[in-house]
């Protein structure tokens, strides 16, 4: 009761404080959700490719932020290596498309539509690419530009029919789109170069042995096993987006700490006579600082609970407004932000606790 008496009155300010804390917590939760959504979406193409080995141009380490061009002519050499079951060329082209809402950019992925290897990890609407005049779009890209299966899409001089929509193909800043390898060669204008080969190995074949063989046999390539390539791509994505998210989250945390510190300091100053009375009546040494910390905790808990209630509807709303911003929140995120908010509250209690020291029991007698 003592803890609540100074923070709940006046009620309007209490509510506004909770809203402020909730917004800061919501910002942090939102950033975590975006991070998780982006990190999952960006590398799910690689993760779910089913490839055992990835062959790319030498010094290229990933497909997100590194260009790789290798000759298609090495395909027969790869196929002849013992232990390799299949060799699937894939070409990536960053390309402009014309939509009804204007030009947009997609990460065109040309793959062998007969084997399906290198194609979309999952289809959520329509069908896979069946011929050279069809394209599969990422579902968030399609939602953003209001494109449906059956619609036509103009890429350079070609008009392609949207065969279906895929999931797990949203890289946040750009989305995958899938076409046949033949069509990709036409669009790119160089039919003798691909971006990578996805290799599948015969059962029981050790990837490390194949990597050594391939790098000895073919100049100008790098070969990665699936796990290393996934790690490379994840690292690339994180190094691109994490500093930005960390900075915004840090600013949110500082704002929260400043807000709480200000509110709690104001409460202390407004109720200084009551604190002085408690000191005069014999409040033990740690009682009043503990009171401030409890107040900070109550405020942060109320703010966090409010944020936890609103984060999931917010993510749904954001995805409707901007489909490519696909966040994924979880109970763990809520716990993490709660712990972070609790820590910030402890930090923000320092200033108001300092103000307590300047309140003297003697003031009660004046």
């Amino acid at each position, binding site marked *: *009761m*003592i803890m*609540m*008496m*100074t923070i*709940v*009155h006046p009620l309007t300010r209490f509510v506004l404080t909770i809203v402020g804390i909730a917004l800061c917590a919501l910002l942090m939760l939102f950033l975590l959700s975006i991070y998780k959504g982006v990190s999952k979406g960006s590398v799910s193409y690689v993760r779910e490719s089913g490839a055992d080995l990835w062959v790319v141009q030498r010094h290229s380490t990933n497909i997100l932020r590194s260009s790789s061009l290798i000759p298609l002519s090495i395909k027969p050499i790869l196929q002849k290596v013992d232990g390799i079951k299949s060799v699937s060329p894939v070409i990536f082209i960053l390309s402009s498309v014309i939509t009804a809402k204007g030009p947009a950019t997609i990460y065109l992925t040309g793959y062998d539509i007969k084997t399906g290897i290198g194609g979309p990890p999952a289809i959520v609407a329509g069908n896979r690419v069946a011929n050279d005049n069809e394209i599969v779009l990422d579902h968030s890209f399609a939602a953003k530009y209001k494109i449906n299966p059956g619609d036509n899409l103009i890429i350079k001089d070609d008009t392609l029919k949207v065969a279906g929509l895929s999931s797990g193909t949203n890289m946040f800043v750009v989305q995958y789109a899938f076409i046949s390898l033949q069509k990709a060669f036409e669009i790119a204008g160089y039919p003798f170069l691909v971006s990578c080969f996805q290799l599948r190995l015969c059962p029981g074949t050790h990837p490390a042995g194949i990597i050594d063989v391939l790098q000895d046999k073919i100049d100008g390539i790098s070969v990665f096993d699936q796990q290393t390539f996934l790690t490379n791509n994840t690292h690339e994505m994180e190094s691109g987006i994490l500093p930005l998210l960390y900075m915004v989250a840090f600013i949110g945390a500082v704002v929260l700490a400043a807000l709480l510190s200000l509110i709690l300091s104001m409460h202390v100053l407004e109720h200084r*006579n*009551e604190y002085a*009375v*408690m*000191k*005069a*009546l*014999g*409040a*033990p*040494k740690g*009682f009043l600082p503990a009171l401030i910390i409890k107040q900070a905790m109550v405020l942060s808990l109320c703010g966090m609970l409010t944020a936890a209630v609103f984060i999931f509807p917010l993510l749904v709303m954001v995805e409707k407004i901007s489909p490519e911003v696909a966040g994924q929140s979880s109970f763990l995120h809520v716990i993490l932000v709660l712990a972070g908010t609790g820590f910030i509250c402890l930090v923000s209690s320092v200033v108001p606790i300092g103000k307590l020291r300047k309140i*003297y*029991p*003697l003031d*009660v*007698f*004046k």
Partner: protein
Amino acid sequence: MGIVAMHRISKIYERQGKGTAALNQISFEASTGELVLLLGPSGSGKTTFLTILAGFQKPSSGQVSLFGKNIMEYPSQELQYLRARHMGFIFQTFNLMEGLNVKENIMLVTRFAREGRNQASKRADYLLNKFEIDPLRSSYPNTLSQGEKQRVAVVRALVNDAELIIADEPTGSLSALQGDQIVAFLKECVDKERRTVIMVSHDERIKHFADRTFYLRDGSMELI
């Protein structure tokens, strides 16, 4: 030695490089079971006297003894416990917590004194009943009359069975009748429960309740 003793206490306030003596070489002692009244006009040093006696400020010179021990020898935590457990305070402006109801205001000091909750609650109920404010136990201070507020403040001062009650102008915000009732309550505590009350006031009307009355003028004290 009495429950509280002051020996040759002086208090000089420095203002603009000039020293003003609020108390000048005062010696005083109060024993268990007496009501001591300190009268004096505004600015005579009455409140300074009380705050030095309770250890809220240090004298410029002299020595204060509280419960048989030099007040300077008490560690600050022990002094706080002493105030919560063995001393009760009554203020002119009551100083009740606006956000707490009557019972919570009273129970607050029992928390400071680390008393058992059940026992403290029983004692609070007894005093609420005795001071005829039991029906107000759930009321908040802003709904109480001045007289009711001061009765709550008195109960708060008594709830821990404090041996020493320090009252700073306890009748100052009350009507003559209400003031008399409060001082009569305190006198009853002194006579029946052997408590010590040290009260400062400028209200000479109440001196007939006191066992001893002192008059403070220009920093000097005399028994009247």
